[in-house]
């Protein structure tokens, strides 16, 4: 198990290097002089030209792009992501102050998706071909096709504008006002969770149908176990492994989705920060948040791989398969 984990971690290094190079390189293509952007309006004044030139040297902008990348990578590895061009605040601070809101949104969406997909997937698999199954499969197709920003706007129209039950937008910190925070979380988390719920239901159903047709389930039934026991104890255990993998794999879509959902609901998380930074041409912030999200995604996938290897020893190398 140890060598398996180590090998997976080593495999990540080239991937991470390419990711960082893409993030760095792409934003260097952006128009504008990074030093002038850092100085802001004052950079245009004639008396500041010498200071601007000094700043350029200081930032290493006279060096070849590859050298600049190596410098930047060195800073990033030691945790120095620079300062925001707009507020002058440390990018790391900005990012970590917004992170809890996004994590909460992603967890909320995952929770809602699991709550919906587990019962629906299991019931559809048991009653395959029934009216319930066909209805839930239609809902799954709809869930996979509906754009989150449209769904979010419609939920706002129904639950905030028409019924007035929930606030249309805004974020309240969890620690300051937990009740308000949860009220505000409900709509965005549901909006974000729909796609995952649909994907999970689809896979869980397919997997349960396969598992329910196996010999050991027939044996369990033949032993006279109650159907409920057979499904919940015997079948579900094997049916759940893909749920774990799919949740891990879909985390990318979920994180990408936060950018849009946070915009719809004015949820001040990382996605909103990134969008704002794009609008402000605050490239250090864009660079850091995209890098962090890609990094987080790679690490979660690593974790899922390891967990999968733990749950299913057959995929581990040196295990006969």
């Amino acid at each position, binding site marked *: 198990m140890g060598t398996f984990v180590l090998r997976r971690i080593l495999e990540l290094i*080239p*991937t*991470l290097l*390419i*990711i960082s190079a*893409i*993030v760095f390189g*792409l*934003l260097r*293509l*952006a*128009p504008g002089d990074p030093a002038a952007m850092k100085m802001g309006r004052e950079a245009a004044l004639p008396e500041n030209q010498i200071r601007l030139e000094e700043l350029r040297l200081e930032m290493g902008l006279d060096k070849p792009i590859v050298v600049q990348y190596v410098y930047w990578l060195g800073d990033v590895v030691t945790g120095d992501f620079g300062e925001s061009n707009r507020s002058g605040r440390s990018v790391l601070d900005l990012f970590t102050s917004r992170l809890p809101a996004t994590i909460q949104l992603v967890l909320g969406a995952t929770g809602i998706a699991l709550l919906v997909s587990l019962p629906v997937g299991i019931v559809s698999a048991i009653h395959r071909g029934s009216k319930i199954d066909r209805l839930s499969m239609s809902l799954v*197709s*709809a869930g*996979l*096709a*509906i*754009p*989150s*920003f*449209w769904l979010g*706007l*419609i939920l*706002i*129209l129904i639950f*905030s*504008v*028409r019924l007035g039950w929930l606030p*249309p937008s805004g974020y309240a910190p969890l620690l300051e006002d937990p009740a308000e925070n949860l009220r505000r979380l409900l709509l965005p988390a549901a909006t974000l969770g729909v796609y995952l719920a649909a994907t999970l239901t689809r896979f869980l159903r*397919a997997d349960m149908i396969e598992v329910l047709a196996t010999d050991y389930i027939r044996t369990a039934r033949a032993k006279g176990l109650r159907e409920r026991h057979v499904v919940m104890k015997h079948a579900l255990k094997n049916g759940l492994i893909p749920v774990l993998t799919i949740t891990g794999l879909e985390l*990318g*879509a979920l*994180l*990408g*989705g936060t*950018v*849009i959902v946070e*915009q*719809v609901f004015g949820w001040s998380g990382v996605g909103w920060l*990134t*969008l704002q930074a*794009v*609008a402000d*041409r605050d*490239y250090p912030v*864009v660079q850091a948040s*995209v890098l962090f*999200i*890609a990094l987080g*995604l*790679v690490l979660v*996938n690593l974790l899922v791989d390891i967990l999968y290897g733990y749950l299913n020893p057959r995929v581990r190398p040196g295990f006969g398969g």
Partner: protein
Amino acid sequence: MAQAVSEHHKLTESGLPGMRLAINRIRDLGRNPQITISTIVVGVALICALVPGWVAPYDPNKIDPINMLQAPSWQHPFGTDEYGRDILTRVIHGSRVELAVSVAGVVLAFAIGVPLGLISGWRGGLVDSITMRFQDALLAFPSILFAILVVAALGASQSSIILTIGVIFIPRFARLVRGTVLFLKEEEFVQASLACGADDRRILMRHILPNAFAPLMVQVTLALAVAILIEAGLSYLGLGVQPPTPTWGNMLQQAQAYPVQAPWYVLAPGACIFVIVLAMNMLGDGLRDSLDPRMRGL
């Protein structure tokens, strides 16, 4: 029976079993209602995109201050927007950018991804390792985030979105084709034609690529669905084609400002995205079921 055997013989002899089977199956496609319905939807959208002026009742940019934010009526079935422009007309014209950008992006991905997959599967070695690592890195970005990064760098324009969609889907096509190549490389019909002295190019184009035809067609339709969502998402975020050119995404962004005065404003543009993506997904699933029975139910 004898006929079936000779048919089978002919297919293997021609070296194009995938292609022939696929063509035979296309004839069966019409019997699948899923495919029929979604083809009609896609067809209607295509007509709207090609000749919006013939289909739409009004001029998409004609401002009419007296009729601002009108509720749906016989004159304006989906109501009017904040400048009094007809929403139905703008939705029809919006299909143009939507489809042009997504189709161009997917075509770009296909044109680069397929040869890349062929070469990296056939040659293996260093070429393969490098392209695979690049693809791993690209797959690590959530697509919408990667799109935002590209738009931040190149500016919000039609061409940068096409480029983004292209880059996002290159790895998916390349992986698919590479997998087929690796799978077929050792097959007898490939080995046989190698022994006959066929060059790499001929083997890849005549013997291997046709076998990837069915899964590629499925992948193209599913990729189009995602591409439409990406384009619409970007223009909703204000990073796509800018108003006054109507796109479904930027119409939704504008509609968001009038939840109380004009709740119907958000319905039409969103419903268009939903229906076309649903149709593309259905078409992809239907094609998968019909063209490749092994993948059925996955």
